[in-house]
């Protein structure tokens, strides 16, 4: 193949790894978009205004983080001091894409191409194609270890301000790689690390209070909140946790409830 199809598509995004990442300003829409716009933005990807709870399980947490918590914007998406948000649960990224589009990381027009050959927006995100996306995910159990390494790397470079956030699903915690990361981060007191667990009771084998107990046993600070309550989420996300990593378990409707 001598030319990539993406470069031939009209009105489509830059294809190189960092082109379009906000060293250059990227004001992609006139009026700021809010949480109430997410259903419309998500419908651009799926053609359906109404989504199942599973498809939106992450929406509130992702929105509150980007809207109220993370020091991150299109203009600072490459800044060494930015907060990092790693979407480990890469499956079902519509709410994430919608949030990034609403916040101006890339044009809303990109959403319509979701999953298409010429689109940078796959059903699992690719960090080299989408501005603002910190990791390429899809295979479960990779985000937490990558987040631990990112937190260690920032600390080694004396970048002590940035927080590192990783979002995982409750079923994703079945993967053993997470537990390598959870134990290490807890035991070494990696205070800049934050994990949001979206708990929609989708794990096949787990006791009802297993997730918070698991983090607590590894010396993490732990909060459990209603994953649809924005104020409660924000309060949990910003709770002090000196000398310990923080896990916020955000409970939403059961996937198969």
């Amino acid at each position, binding site marked *: 193949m001598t030319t990539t199809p993406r470069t031939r598509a009209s009105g489509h995004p830059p294809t190189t*790894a960092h082109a379009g990442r906000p060293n250059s300003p990227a004001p992609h829409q006139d009026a700021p978009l809010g949480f109430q716009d997410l259903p419309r933005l998500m419908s651009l990807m799926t053609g359906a205004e109404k989504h199942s709870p599973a498809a939106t399980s992450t929406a509130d947490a992702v929105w509150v983080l980007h809207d109220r918590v993370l020091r991150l914007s299109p203009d600072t998406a490459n800044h*060494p001091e930015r907060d990092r948000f790693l979407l480990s649960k890469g499956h079902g990224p519509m709410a994430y894409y919608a949030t990034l589009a609403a916040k101006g990381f890339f044009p809303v027009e990109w959403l319509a191409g979701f999953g298409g050959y010429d689109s940078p927006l796959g059903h699992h995100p690719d960090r080299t194609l989408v501005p603002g996306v910190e990791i390429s995910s899809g295979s479960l159990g990779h985000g937490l270890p*990558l987040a*631990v*390494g*990112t937190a260690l790397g920032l600390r080694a470079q004396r*970048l002590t301000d940035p927080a590192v956030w990783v979002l995982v699903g409750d079923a994703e915690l079945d993967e053993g790689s997470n537990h390598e990361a959870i134990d290490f981060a807890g035991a070494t007191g990696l205070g800049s690390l934050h994990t949001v667990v979206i708990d929609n009771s989708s794990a096949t084998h787990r006791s009802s209070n297993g997730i918070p107990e698991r983090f607590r046993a590894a010396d993490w600070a732990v909060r459990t909140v209603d994953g649809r309550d924005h104020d409660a989420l924000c309060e949990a996300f910003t709770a002090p946790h000196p000398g310990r990593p923080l896990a916020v378990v955000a409970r939403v409707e059961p996937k198969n409830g």
Partner: protein
Amino acid sequence: MDTMRERFTTITSQLLDGQTRLAVVLAEIGADGFTEAARRHPERVVNVGIREQLLVGVGGGLALSGMRPILHTFASFLVERPFEQLKLDLGHQGAEAVLVSANGSYDWPAGGYTHMAPGDVALLDTLEGWTVHVPGHPDEAEVLLREAALGGGRVYLRLSNQTNSVPQKVGSSRDGTPGGFLTLRTGSAGAPVVVAVGPMLDATLAALEDTDATVLYAATVRPFDHRALRRAVEGRASADVVLVEPYLRGTSAARVAEALETVPHRLLALGTAPEELRRYGEWEEHVAAHGLFGPRTTLRAPLGTRRQARGVHRCRSTTVRRGLIDAACSARTAGPTRRVPDLVTVP
């Protein structure tokens, strides 16, 4: 002389002092050697415990944050166990790191098959963009390590207890292109071209002492130096090539085929047999069992009797019985009608 692995510990500890972007990640194995470096640089020498998936994931995260991570453990736990992490946490992220392995094929055979990884280079071959160094001497290992630590890219440095008696001049050329193959001997037109990889050089040269052959030396096998191989057979209507690799037999066979796409050729690939030997002992005995010895080297002596060489016969490779020198001669003299199982005849 120190071992490659001891040299790695010494040099990496020194590099940590001057290079603030450099970090070392370990999973217990090798951590003792870095005690002093960890005291000086507690934030850049990280021992994650016996957690190899985390070892590679942390390496990926460090790289994403702007560091140059060096990950070290035995090859079986660095490449085989966390293989998907290599694929995704480094490759797919577009992240770069240096992997330094020890105990590659059978450096510690008393440890058994769980501690052997003859397929490591073949596995990395399924991934994009890895530079693979297989040094044959601690001095070579040092040159390649320094380049890898200070440079970029995804680099696999395969350290071994097996060494050649003298170091070769390895590493990148002045223009920065990765180290190509060295031409150590030039045979007559029609003589086989033998590519010896890393620690296989001494045995290869010993085997070819009285044999007309061109000998290329590869301490860097990926990228494969297509040009050097083509140059070695330039002007020939057909070519005989012998690959001598210290890991899984035939690992570079496809690369030879690519290089000689337009040259009718036969290939004899020598290396570690895929069959489990189920033997302990010393690495020298395993070298012999896999047929990777030169008849004039002393390695043959302790395995000279049939009884002691029992393990040899459990390997199917005909090269085991022939030895390298016979193999090289066969490559040169075998006609197209003679059945030589290890030779691939290209019409």
